[in-house]
């Protein structure tokens, strides 16, 4: 993913005001992605306002229990990843590897639970074609799921990187971490919009 040679990258000092984790190109991606999703969220709100009864009625068929568990899953895996990034920065590769492995293991539960959530809904006839709410629900959570899967792949590469490199490229670890936190962040908004609000 990144071309910066690890050995020449200076480790950020302890007080790191003005420091940007990851590479600038990654931030371009993160910020752009956030804005694209923001446009979709606002569009959702506008269409919801046009037929609130339909949206509220359809919302009843979601499973807020699975939603909240998935939120906690993402938050916890993000936490592990943040700790892992710090450990890697301190040069403690072994601890970083363990924490990233935990991130991966916890994060991998998300797609599984998503299937547990989706399959019975589809079986009960709540397909994307049913109405606008379900279309939004499947499209947005599906798009987010793609981000989660990509994130898991990236974390896999980070794990491999940590295992094979004596001094890991911290910029790469940071960039992957920022991406995963963004996935977490987007889910927080999705959760509020689809499961919680009235």
């Amino acid at each position, binding site marked *: 993913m990144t071309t910066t040679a690890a050995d020449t990258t200076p480790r950020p000092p302890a007080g790191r005001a003005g420091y940007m984790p990851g*590479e600038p*190109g990654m931030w*371009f*991606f993160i910020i*752009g992605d956030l804005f*694209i999703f923001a446009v979709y969220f606002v*569009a959702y709100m506008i269409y919801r306002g046009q037929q609130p009864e339909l949206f509220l009625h359809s919302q009843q068929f979601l499973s807020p229990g699975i939603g909240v568990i998935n939120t906690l899953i993402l938050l916890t895996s993000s936490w592990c990843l943040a700790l892992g990034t710090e450990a890697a920065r301190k040069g403690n590769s072994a601890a970083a590897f363990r924490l990233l492995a935990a991130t991966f293991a916890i994060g991998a539960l998300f797609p599984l639970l998503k299937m547990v959530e989706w399959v019975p809904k589809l079986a009960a006839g709540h397909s994307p*074609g049913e109405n606008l709410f379900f*279309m939004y629900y499947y*499209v947005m959570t599906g798009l987010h799921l793609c981000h989660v899967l990509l994130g898991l792949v990236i974390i896999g590469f980070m794990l491999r990187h940590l295992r094979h490199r004596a001094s890991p490229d911290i910029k790469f670890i940071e960039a992957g971490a920022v991406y995963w936190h963004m996935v977490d962040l987007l889910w927080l908004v999705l959760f509020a919009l689809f499961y919680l609000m009235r």
Partner: protein
Amino acid sequence: MNIATAALAGTLADSGRPWYKSPKLDQYICFWSVPVFYNLFGLVFVPLSWMMPPRSPTNSIDGVVAFMQSPNLLLATTILILCVALSAVGNAVYMSQMRRMAVSPVLRYAFVVGAITGAIVGCLFPMFCFGLGAFREGYDPEVLQLLYDFGYMSFIGCLGCFFLNWSCLGLSILLDEKQTLPRWLGYYTIWQSVTEIFAMTLWVSDSGPFAWDGVMTFWFNMLLYVPWQFIVYFCIYRAIRQQPESELDNAPYVGGAARA
């Protein structure tokens, strides 16, 4: 990086030489065919056929019949027949940049397939659906509506080929350690390919934001796509200009001779 020196070398080499003597003339010819193509393409799909902006899938049957028999559709189809192959030239411009990148040729090979299929199902066939309606009077309204649906759905819902193409292009840009094209463009290209996926909803949605004329399926994509198309060609133009002449395939033949 060596971009500055390359730009300098490019400028020096270009100076004092008429444009038609440039060793990169083949690339420039193909590059400048792109604005020609997009102008014709715009002409065909907007003022001639008024197919774009997309008409509603909930259009009344009379509206469909009136549109499908509008006279300029045949002129639009004719122009498209003549210029559809220019899309191949434009895609070849991408491919020759992808060839310069330090990536596996597999990305280019996949791109070839996407470019060929996309030109037929995402460009020529949809226009033919409308042209066929205009070609002969007296077809049943149901037949015309079938053509109308088929035309719009294959034009706007043709996402697989373009998803493949832009993913291959974006991935090439991101994996390329030489940074032939800037990395941010790679990320932008990936968004472009991901938003193509949104078009899949039109296959199950007959009205509202996810239909083929919907905000989510069409307009947001346009918002991202139109600037992207301009920016990507601008970046490619810069990449062609900045390519050092010593790197060109014809360098051993023209490089020395032209300067001597």
